[in-house]
C-alpha cells in the first residue's frame, strides 16, 4: 500500500500533466465557444510544457545558473549533479513563445469569424452557414 502511495506521489507531476492535457484536449473538441476552445488549446500546450519541465528536475540540484559568477574568473570544477537539467528549459522557452504566437493568430481569427457571423458559438455559426 505504501508502495502504491509513494508511486502515485512520486509521479504526481506526470499524473497532473496528463490530467491537464486531457482537460485541454476535451475542451478543444467538445467546447462550443471558439474562445473557450482557444483557452483549452493553451491549457493543452501548457500541460506539455509542464511535462518537459518535469523531465529536467533533478533531486538535490539547484537552478541552472552557475554560482560565483560575478567578478571572479575561476569557477572551479562544475559538477553536473548540482544543477538541474537546462535543456528542457530551453526547449520550453521556445514552446511558450510558440504558444503565444498561436494564441495571437487564433484570437485574430476568432475576431474575424465574429465580424462575419456576429457570434462565437460554433453551432450558431454552422446553422448560419447551412442557411446560406
Amino acid at each position, binding site marked *: 500500500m505504501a508502495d502504491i502511495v509513494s508511486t502515485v506521489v512520486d509521479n504526481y507531476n506526470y499524473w497532473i500533466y496528463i490530467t491537464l492535457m486531457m*482537460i485541454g484536449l476535451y475542451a478543444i473538441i467538445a467546447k462550443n465557444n471558439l*474562445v473557450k476552445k482557444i483557452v483549452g488549446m493553451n491549457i493543452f500546450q501548457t500541460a506539455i510544457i509542464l511535462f518537459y519541465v518535469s523531465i529536467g*528536475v533533478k533531486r538535490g540540484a539547484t537552478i541552472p545558473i552557475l554560482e560565483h559568477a560575478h567578478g571572479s574568473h575561476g569557477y572551479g570544477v562544475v559538477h553536473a549533479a548540482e544543477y538541474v537539467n537546462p535543456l528542457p528549459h530551453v526547449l520550453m522557452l521556445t514552446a511558450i513563445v510558440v*504558444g503565444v504566437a498561436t494564441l495571437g493568430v487564433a484570437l485574430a481569427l476568432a475576431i474575424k469569424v465574429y465580424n462575419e457571423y456576429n457570434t462565437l458559438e460554433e453551432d450558431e455559426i454552422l446553422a448560419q452557414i447551412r442557411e446560406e
Partner: protein
Amino acid sequence: MVWPIDLAILTLVVMVAIGSLMVKDLLGAAILFGAYSFMMCLLWTVMGAVDVAFTEASVGAGVSTVFFVGAVFRTSRRTRD
C-alpha cells in the same frame, strides 16, 4: 524542494484550469486563465526552471491575458459553455 507546496499548487492548477473552462463569461475565463498561467509559473519556479517561469510570468500571465481581454473586448463576453 518542498513537495507539499508542489502538490498543493498542482492541485490548484487543475482546479483553475477547470474553472476557466467552466465559467460562463469569457472575460472571467480570460482572467482565470491568467491565474492558471501564474500558478504554472510558481510551479516551475519550485522546480528550478527559473527562466521558464520568468517567461511564463511575462508571456502567459501577462501578455496572453491582455490578448484575451483585447479579443473579448472586440467580440463578446457571452458564452453558453
